[in-house]
């Protein structure tokens, strides 16, 4: 036991929790804490916008499996974290967010830079705390980290009034005692037996895998189960990489922009084994006609997910790793059968594809090239078309190497998440697949990457529009492109990168794509690659909103007339930016 200030106690807690890096930005009420940071050996990454800090902590957590930590000052600093916290909450990411708060005696008085951040984040945190006394610091931090990483992980916020960081305290490290928190872990034996029986009886099983498998570190167990019974595996966006996509049993992603064969398999299945997935609307399509012939076994660590969106025949509450281990022991081996053949047929008939082009870069081609040249890279994504193409055309094999904003769908996530991931796993190449719309939402973090020498790569699929929304307007709003054409309003991304001291590269022709990627991978500095891609390209296939999964459509990827129309809109602006050779 030793005497220290509250701020020093906070750092002692972080040290004891094994935190080696924090992402943050200081402010008035955080002066005592930042003074303690200055005198400690913790690695602090100064961000340029607090949203970046939250996404970095999130990316760090997803890449390493450890709890990510971000820090922001009171008021606007704290509210700037909100999107990042909501994002982590929707995707069950273990995170501790520390916010400064005004002195305790000023709370509720509308003091300068005061915001009720515990109130604001109530619905988007797993739990949150407003510290009122320095003596509670150790207990609260220990509880916060415990809550963030156990059970279904999630963000926990600690609001830290200035005076609490100044007051002196005798530091003790208490045991966690939370009478109201019992994360379920071990699956019920009877339920496992029932699930195993159902799996053995099924003739058309599908294993449907979500982020729960990733957080439980259960990829190995999933592989063992699937190959033992020869059951096809489809993953959600959050579950990507949990099952190797080059395995014949892999169906890739399901849902709105999933593969046709994954969606067909679900609709024809007689048994769905859902593991750590939550039957999100983007996955199920029209819920009433989802998997009409299937019994559903649902393994989830969060009891509240079972039965929330669909009726479940066999609920199994427990950690995915533990439940799958138990299940493997209960099931007998099954040979390949008719069902596997049928799926093989679908895979042959309806592969993911696009029409290659010699003259204009297809965004899917860029992803394929990234996969070819950096197969082991960590891929982060922004949100929209870039995200779906990265999900579809990169062959994923490791869940910690695909980092994407699933539940909240946060544009501007991928770039800071890449910085966080790179901090956690510096040995990996980290590439953010971005769009020209979303990259600008947090491009200020280029300064963070450059100053801290974090050599992440950004691949901007520059199609001059907010592509996913434009795609919907083309399909469902009679091509009225309301507020989706960016054209000339985007900056020159090469110059933007250079302005920050990063490297900027551009490819305007398919033949330049490979050399740009190679050059980016060869440099040890942050790089922005600007790929001028076909503006009319659409993400295909697609289940229209509210339709049944089997009503999945293969879109005309790039309708000729449409392309011309869009080209005309963009041409002028593009010429201004890129010169004649832009097209």
């Amino acid at each position, binding site marked *: 036991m030793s005497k220290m200030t509250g701020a020093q106690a906070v750092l002692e807690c972080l040290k004891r929790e094994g935190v080696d890096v924090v992402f943050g930005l200081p402010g008035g009420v955080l002066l005592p804490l930042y003074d303690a940071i200055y005198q400690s050996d913790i690695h602090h990454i100064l961000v340029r916008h607090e949203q970046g800090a939250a996404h970095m902590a999130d990316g760090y957590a997803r890449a390493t499996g450890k709890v990510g930590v971000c820090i922001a000052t009171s008021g606007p600093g704290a509210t700037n974290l909100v999107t990042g916290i909501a994002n982590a909450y929707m995707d069950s990411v273990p995170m501790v967010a520390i916010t400064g708060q005004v002195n305790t005696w000023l709370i509720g008085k509308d003091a300068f830079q005061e915001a009720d951040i515990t109130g604001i984040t109530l619905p988007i945190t797993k739990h949150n705390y407003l510290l009122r006394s320095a003596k509670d610091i150790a207990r609260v931090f220990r509880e916060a980290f415990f809550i963030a990483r156990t059970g279904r992980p999630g963000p926990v916020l600690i609001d830290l009034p200035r005076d609490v960081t100044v007051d002196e305290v005798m530091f003790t490290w208490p045991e966690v005692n939370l009478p*109201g928190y019992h994360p379920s872990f071990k699956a019920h034996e009877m339920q496992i037996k029932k699930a195993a029986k159902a799996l053995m009886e099924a003739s058309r099983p599908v294993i449907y895998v979500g982020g729960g498998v990733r957080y439980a570190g259960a990829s190995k167990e999933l592989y063992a189960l699937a190959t033992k019974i020869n059951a096809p595996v489809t993953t959600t966006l959050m579950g990507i990489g949990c099952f190797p996509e080059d395995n014949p049993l892999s169906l890739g992603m399901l849902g709105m922009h999933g593969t046709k064969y994954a969606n067909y398999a679900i609709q024809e299945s007689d048994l769905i084994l859902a593991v750590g997935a939550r039957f999100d609307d983007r996955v199920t399509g029209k819920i009433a006609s989802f998997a009409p012939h299937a019994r559903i076994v649902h393994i989830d660590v969060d009891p*509240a997910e079972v039965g929330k969106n669909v009726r479940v025949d066999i609920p199994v509450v427990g950690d995915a790793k533990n439940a799958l281990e138990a299940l493997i022991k209960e099931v007998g081996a099954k040979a390949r059968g008719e069902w596997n053949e049928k799926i093989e047929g679908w895979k042959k008939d309806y592969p993911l594809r696009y029409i290659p082009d010699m003259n204009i870069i297809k965004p899917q081609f860029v992803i394929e090239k990234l996969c070819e040249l950096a197969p082991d890279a960590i891929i982060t994504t922004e949100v929209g078309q870039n995200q779906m193409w990265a999900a579809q055309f990169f062959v994923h094999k490791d869940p910690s190497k695909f980092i994407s904003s699933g539940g909240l769908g946060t544009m501007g996530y991928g770039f800071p998440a890449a910085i966080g991931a790179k901090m956690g796993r510096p040995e990996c190449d980290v590439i953010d697949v971005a769009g020209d719309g979303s990259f600008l939402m947090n491009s200020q973090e280029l300064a963070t990457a450059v100053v801290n020498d974090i050599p992440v790569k950004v691949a901007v699929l520059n199609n001059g529009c907010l592509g996913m929304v434009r795609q919907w307007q083309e399909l469902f709003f009679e091509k009225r492109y309301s507020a989706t054409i960016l054209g000339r309003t985007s900056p020159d991304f090469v110059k933007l990168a250079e302005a920050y001291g990063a490297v900027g590269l551009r490819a305007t022709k398919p033949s330049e794509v490979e050399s740009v990627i190679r050059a980016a991978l060869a440099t040890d500095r942050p790089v922005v690659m600007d790929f001028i891609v076909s503006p009319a390209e659409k993400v295909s296939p697609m289940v229209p909103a509210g339709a049944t999964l089997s009503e999945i459509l293969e879109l005309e990827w790039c309708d000729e007339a449409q392309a011309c129309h869009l080209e005309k809109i963009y041409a002028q602006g593009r010429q201004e930016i890129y010169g004649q050779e832009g097209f």
Partner: protein
Amino acid sequence: MKHTIAVIVENKSGVLTRIAGLFSRRSFNIDSLSVGATDNPDYARMTITVQGDRDVLEQVIKQLSKLINVIRVSELDASESVVRELAVIKVSADKESRSEIMQIVNIFRAKIIDVSHRSMIIEVTGDENKIDAMIQLLRQFGIKELARTGMVSMVRGARVIKA
């Protein structure tokens, strides 16, 4: 369908907000909510009446259980529980109506806790139906003000719902 649940929570500031926030965020309908300390001052007990089918009730219970400050959630089966609510009703009362009101008060085993020239305050306890019935009967005299506590409930017999 109406369901009554007892929720044992940590007796701390902000817990009520968490619960109320959960109900509004998930679009669960609260009919009635009451809260007070238990025999152990560290814990408070809430009695919540919610509307919805079995699936909704199951979600309510599971989502409440996820809150860190919630220690225990139990459904109280209507047939095995006693349910009470208290209401105070200020009703217009003059010389002519006073005796008639007092008769109603007696029939309902309610109490008069304040009298003035023009009004009286009546205190009544009972289940929801009894209180509704009483209010209905008093309407003819003119209800000036009404306050209800919301339901509290407890299982009959030996079963105990505690932290």
